[in-house]
Structures are given as C-alpha cells and as structure tokens.
C-alpha cells in the first residue's frame, strides 16, 4: 500500500483534478494515523472544520474520541473568511482566512507543541495549496510552504499537501514539487482510483488504489 511506503517525517503533495480522488487518499491516511493514535492536524482552506468532519464521516471515517483526546485538531481558514461568526473550540482554531499567513503559522506552531508532548510523530494535512495560490503570488506561497515544511519536520511530523491539477500553470506545479519529498498523482478511471508516486520505489507507475 502506497501510504505505508511513504517514510515518516516527509513532505508529500497529492495532485489530482478537482474531486478526482485525492480526497480519498488523504482521508485514508487520516484514518490510518488515527487508528495508530498518531495526532492529526487538518488545515482547511476551502471548507469549514465542521464540513470537513462531515465529509470524513461520509467516507466512513469515524474518529470517536480522537478530538476530545487532542489527537485530531483543525485550523479552519474558511469560516471567518466568509464572514461567519464562529468561535474557537478545544479542537478547532479559526484563523481569519487564507491570506492571514502569520496567523496560520502561529496556530500551527501552537498545535504542534501540543502534539509533540503527546507523540513522537504526527501528521499535518494541508487542504489545499490551491486555495492559497488563488490569493497570493506563487513565490509568496513558495516561501510560506518552505517555512511550514521545515517547522513540521523539525517537530517530527509529516506533511500532506493537496493541489488541484489544471488550476495552476506548470511552473507553479514544478515549484511546489521541488519543495516536496514525494509527489503523489491520483486519477479516477472507470470508477476505480489509480495512484503513482514520483520518488517512491515500486510506485512510479499507475496502480490501483484500494482504501
């Protein structure tokens, strides 16, 4: 299985056309981590934390008491951005929007500090880089991602970024790929999901993905 082959403490970008399967791959990784009590932080830029949770449940990922135990946390970059009057909860930190990079980095540092005390490893899911790229220029997001990856790795974590295929110019994709250890491509064909991964032995060619 592809996810198990990705070494700890790496930065991965998962690329697919919108709604063409990277969500399945990412959810599957979240599920594996939570099962092993590895803390997971989801940074959501295009939907609220609540909507993200609902979708996990739809994917039949039940996280039980992970949230109350501090093993599942969210940084919600969406709700305040669309003007919703929402508050922080014990597991959800709201930041004002995808352009508030400083606030995102502060929230990330705070949560990683908590995770670090609980477990030697953790996972950060960043969904999605594409939203970020809509609002700032690619160089700026490049600098941000570089800082974020360094921070996550230093704290012992792994990072999963998602990127929409077809939304960005090739040079932007190339720049993002340069910062990552592995690039995972996902596609859907005849109702089946296929994956391949650049840089990962044995997965360089398309193969079917089963969750």
């Amino acid at each position, binding site marked *: 299985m592809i996810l198990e082959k990705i070494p700890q403490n790496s930065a991965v970008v998962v690329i697919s056309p919108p709604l063409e399967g990277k969500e399945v791959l990412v959810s599957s990784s979240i599920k594996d981590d939570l099962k092993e009590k590895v803390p997971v932080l989801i940074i959501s830029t295009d939907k609220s934390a609540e909507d993200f949770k609902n979708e996990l449940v739809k994917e039949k990922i039940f996280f039980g008491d992970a949230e109350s135990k501090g093993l599942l946390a969210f940084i919600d970059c969406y709700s*305040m*951005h669309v*003007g919703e*009057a929402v508050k922080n909860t014990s597991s959800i930190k709201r930041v*004002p*929007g995808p*352009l*508030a*990079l*400083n*606030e995102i*980095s*502060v929230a*990330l*540092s705070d949560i*990683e*500090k908590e995770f*670090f*005390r609980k477990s030697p490893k953790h996972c950060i899911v960043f969904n999605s880089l594409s939203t970020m790229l809509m*609002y*700032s*220029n690619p*160089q*700026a997001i490049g*600098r*941000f991602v*570089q*800082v974020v990856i360094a*921070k996550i790795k*230093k*704290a*012992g974590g792994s990072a999963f970024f998602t990127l929409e295929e077809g939304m960005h110019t090739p040079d932007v994709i190339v720049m993002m790929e340069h910062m990552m250890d592995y690039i995972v491509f996902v596609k859907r064909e005849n109702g089946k999901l296929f994956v391949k991964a650049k840089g990962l032995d044995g997965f360089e060619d398309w193969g079917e993905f089963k969750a």
Partner: protein
Amino acid sequence: MAFSKEKIARKHKLDFTEGKKYNMVATGVPKLDDVLCGGLKPQSTVLLCSQPGVENVEFALQTLFNRLKAGDHGVYLVNNKLPNSVKLLAEEYGWDLGDYQRQGTFAFFDAYSAMLSLKSGTEYYSSEPQNMQQLSEVMPEVLAKLENDNIILIFDALSTLIDSTKNEDEVLAGIKKFLSEVRKYNTISFFLFTEWLYPKSLTNKIKSLFECVIEIKALERSVILQKYFSVVKAPQAFERKDIPFKIIKPGGVRVFIPKILVTGPYHAGKTSFVHSASTKAVSVNRLGTTVALDHGHVEYKGYEVDLFGTPGQERFDPILELLGGESLGVVVVIDSTMPKDFGRAKEMVKLSNTVDLPVVVVANKANMKGALTVDAIRKQMKLPANVPVIPVVAENMADVKEGKPCQLKSEDVQKVFSALLEVVV
C-alpha cells in the same frame, strides 16, 4: 525584577530627559515602554518584525487599544483578513474597538475586499490596495477626518503587501512616500511584518525605512520553547534586551521571567547548586533537607532567569507541567559517588526530553572519593548525545558540612549555564 527607568538609565547611561522632552507615547505593552525609555516617539515609524509562528497582531492591537483609551485616535489598515475579524479578535482580548468606532475616533481601512475583488462594507477602503502610491493619497484624507494630536496607524500587513506584488522596489518607494505623507498628521505608524524567507537584502531595505524596529522571535528546538521581543532600533536611547512574553486571552501580551528547574535525587546538591548560582536565594529547610522549592535568581548574559530547586522526592512530571510554558530548561543534579540513585535522575532527563526542554546533568561531588567519571556516568545513565554532563565540585572542601548546603565552584556553575543556555540562546 525591578525594571525601573532610573535603574535601566544608570546601567546603560541612557538619557531619560530625552523621553520627557519628546513626550513619549506609551504603548501599554509591558516592559516595551521601559526599554524604549517611556514609549514611542511622536510621529515615529515602527516596524513590528516577527518570525513565522510568533504573534505580531496582538502587539499592535494592544498598543492601539491603550492609545484609544488614552484619548488618541486610530486607524487600522488591513489587507489580509476582514476588518470584522480583527474586531472580533480584539474582543477576545477584552479590547472593544466598537465604542471608539461609534465615537468616530477609530476606523478600519479595508484594503482586503479589493484583494478578493469584493465590495467593501466599510467607510474607508482602497480599490487598489497593492498600489502604495494610491494609498499615500487616500490615507491622508482619512487621517484628516480623524484629526488629533496623536493618531495610531496600524498597517496589517506589510508582508501581505509584498507577497501580492511583483515589483518590490516600487513597493519600497511607495512605503517611503506613505510614511512621509502620514506623519504630517501626527501619526505613529505601526507596520506588521512577518519574516518569511525573503532575501536578506529585501528585509534589510525594509528595516531601514523605519525609525524603530521591534523584533518578535522564538527560541525553537523541535517546537517553539519560548517567545520574546526586543527593540533593535529606535530614534531615542533604548535598552537592547530580550524580553520573554506569553499571550493571554483575555489580557494580551504578558511578560514573565523564564524558569530553570533544578532537580535530582536526595542529597545530590540541588540546594547547594541553587544557592551557588544565585545572586539571592531562599530555601525552606527542615532537619537538613529541603521541604519546599528552593528559589533563586540568576542573570546570565543579559537574561534574567529564576531557579527552582525541587525537594527531590516528589513526582517530577506535575512540576514540569506546572512550570509549563515558562521553563527554559532543566538541571539534573546527581551525586557522582551515588550510582544507585542514577535511575531516577535518568527518568528526569527522559521526561525533560519528551517535552523538548533543554537538559543538563550536573555531576556533583566530582572530586570525591568514589566519584564516577563523566564517561562512566554517561554510560550508566545511557544519556543521549545532546545532553551535556558537567562535573562540579565544592569551592572549598574545608567548608563542606554535613546537613548544610555548600558553595560550589563558580566556574563550574557558569559552565552549567552556558551548556544549558547555549542550546537555546
């Protein structure tokens, strides 16, 4: 810790009459006004420069609110979030901007909506927020309406502006123009800037545009251990000093003295260490052993640090928890002649490591008969390579008395602090 202006002035030969002369504007951020000899100079330009992962908005908001409360006027330009989200954040700290908005002494300037091609819901906004030349023309109109002896202008954020444009030189020229335009209206400008990995030359150019630069940084190991701020540039005399802070909701920026925990088995020399290291120290002793925390205070290379010595028998993890965000490191004192007690010390090293606190082992009584060598101690305790072991001896063997803490050799004690703080400072 007395941070009195007079004391600082004497120590650094600063001229506080200068502060009086200019009628400094207090920020209300604790200790910041002290190191600035009273506060910000009227009409000055300030860059709040933060490392990623560390707050900066709170410093600006706290200053803004304090100035509004003191009767000044203010405007908050924001280009990276909705003005209302700034207002909501301020409320969480207990700073209600709404009243001042209604009185007309405070206003938001919306430079965000246009970034997203949305219509602004506020009175003051820019249709071209990336264009500093245009902002330099629009902002004076706002300031003219807000007219006052002192206006605080927050610019949140300069990094967002730079991130959204391609021509950096144009932005720099625009900022220069903007700063000179707004100061005509008795404005103190506060620019927020996060140091993403910009080229050093660009950050230097930016810093040179401002009269006052305040850096907000973090001591980082695997995760952020502690945050501190320091003034690195000011138009008036100032004290260069790292000030540790925490951000509390409600409340805002709070300053504290970092703590070092001194722990170890019974009779190893913890009390001796705390007393020998401190300029002043107190202990609660009964029947020759410490029954409550030893408490001392050290100054090391401009850092002020509180020392806490544990009695030694108690559980260690709740103490670590207690000192939580305020501790800078752990000193584990062992008696080099007592390997039977190493087990517990080893446990303490391990716990400190799991919460990412720097830890140093003090191999005390190193010159006594039967004392193990540093290497032997390393091996016995299976210490990871990142944990230094420093041998320490009594200053004067003739003064060592049973049941009484003794003076430890000051060179050795100094070595312990350098080893501990080297990793973080």
